[in-house]
């Protein structure tokens, strides 16, 4: 019998929700500052998907680092791996061809078709704000990936009608516009600090799937800068189980690295954690 946890936080709910999307057959690599997806990958592997393959930091195949520390691209993550995947010929070939089909991304702007921007606010050549850049998601958007989007800032600045710059291709203009470009798969789910969204199969518009405990549909709607498809019934996001919470807190991420992804989380200013 499964016991639902009563005592859980948003970061934990986000990790658990993401973890439940991953299957035993998934082969997943992670990028930089990705504590939430990496925690989710490790949690899935400890629960329902023991055969899931994680390529730690896009290098360490099936690594067993113990608990989260340092940095999600650090070589410490490769611990006990079965292979160091050379990135240029091996990793990128497997990614390009589709062997590694699942990828998690986030960005400064996300629009209603799941297009993502992390490049600029405003015009590319004369930006109002220059953002870090698309990094891997610039690739992944065009490479037939099943994309999971996470965001710890569900507000109207992040969730916008149309991205200022199309860095990561989602469903473009919706409908069959992604398909017409010859691209398979695309964004699957959006997990935020307020709720969970998927994409309506025909229009490919973002659709509310569930709201987190204590969040109203109205609040989430207000915090979204475009018109979200909202079904008549919107359930609460299924809570973590006690076992999931135990694994996450005590085994996978005892140092709470996942919390670093939230604004206002204190930075560690020392190597002597």
């Amino acid at each position, binding site marked *: 019998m499964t016991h639902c946890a009563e005592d859980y936080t948003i970061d934990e709910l986000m990790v658990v929700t993401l973890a439940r999307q991953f299957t035993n057959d998934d082969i997943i690599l992670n990028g*930089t*500052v990705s504590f939430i997806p990496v925690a989710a990958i490790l949690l899935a592997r400890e629960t329902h998907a023991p055969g899931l393959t994680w390529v730690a930091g896009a*290098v360490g195949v099936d690594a067993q680092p113990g608990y989260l*520390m*340092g*940095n999600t*691209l*650090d*070589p*410490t993550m490769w611990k006990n791996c079965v292979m*160091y*995947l*050379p*990135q*240029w010929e091996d990793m*990128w070939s497997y990614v*390009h061809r589709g062997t590694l089909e699942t990828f998690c991304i986030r960005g400064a702007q996300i629009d209603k078709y799941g297009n993502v921007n*992390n*490049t600029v606010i405003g015009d*590319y*050549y*004369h*930006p*109002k*704000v*220059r953002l*870090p*850049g*698309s*990094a*891997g998601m*610039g*690739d992944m*958007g*065009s*490479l037939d990936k099943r994309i999971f989007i996470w965001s710890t800032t569900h507000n109207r600045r992040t969730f916008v009608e149309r991205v200022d*710059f*199309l*860095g*990561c*291709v989602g469903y*473009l203009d919706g409908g069959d516009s*992604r398909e017409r*470009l*010859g*691209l398979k798969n695309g964004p699957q789910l959006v997990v935020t600090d307020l709720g969970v969204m998927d994409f309506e199969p025909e229009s490919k518009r973002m659709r509310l799937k569930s709201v987190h405990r204590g969040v109203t549909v109205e609040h989430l709607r207000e915090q979204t800068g475009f018109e979200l498809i909202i079904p008549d019934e919107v359930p609460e996001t299924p809570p973590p189980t006690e076992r999931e919470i135990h694994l996450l807190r005590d085994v996978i991420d005892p*140092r709470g690295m996942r919390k*670093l992804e939230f604004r206002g989380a204190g*930075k*560690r*200013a*020392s*190597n*002597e*954690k």
Partner: protein
Amino acid sequence: MVARKKDKVMTLVDAVQLIHDGDIIALQGMGTQMSPLALVREIIRSRKRDLTVVMVVGGIGLDWMIAAGCVRRVLAIIVNLDEFGMANAFRRAVEAGEIEMEEYTEHQLLSRLSAGSKGLPFLVTRSGLGADLINIHPETTKIIECPFTGQKVIACRALEPDVAILHAHRADLYGNVQFFPKPIWTDVDVFPRAAKKVIVTVEEIVENEEIRRTPIHTGIPYFKVDAVVEVPYGAHPCSLYPNYSFDRVLFQEYATMSRTVEGTRQFLDKYILEPASHAEYLQRVGGAEALLRIRKWS
């Protein structure tokens, strides 16, 4: 009698003479990892100008060079300081129109470099099809059709940097460069092959015999290397796994000070322009205490 092999060991000061104003330099490094930062500090001290800097993941060294006025253009897929946030000098310089940022997807940028390394005029990728990035550099990325199937792909024009600069674990005096466990990351792998000249700083120069005992770790052959400089802790404040971790104290100090132009200048003065040597730099960042704290990977 001609010499058997050329001794390529030199000082940081001599090595940067291989870099000229206006050069395209390929700079190894991730946000907080494995970057030849002692060499970058020497580039700043020698007041190089109008550099084009190619990185996969731009980080603190790039931000310093931008703040110091060495850089005219950046080619990268992302520029930031990992968990320490934005690269503020970069952000300000782009927003002010002082430098150009030519952003690529990773596979586009690597395809450009790989084409350069092979002496091919271009290579193709599917990465970035449908996105806006290819439109901002029509001179170097262009949609073409497969001559067999008609499928659309992006042609990525060859890029040969003038100089690649890297930090590695060790090398011999001829320039056989070793990485532990081995060269894995794309920049370590592709940059030296693509560049016309290669400068490598290393933690340690070892005997040629030691290299021959462990050829499995050699990632760059000596015939591709122009300069070898021994600089222990040469990646600081970035990490060099497994030797030492990144220095959270200095990263945080830079992240904080670089929020203002004045603070950035003070940081550069204190840590880059004033120290007369690498030893003095290490002393300023905390000396023995700093070297002890970066032994921890937590």
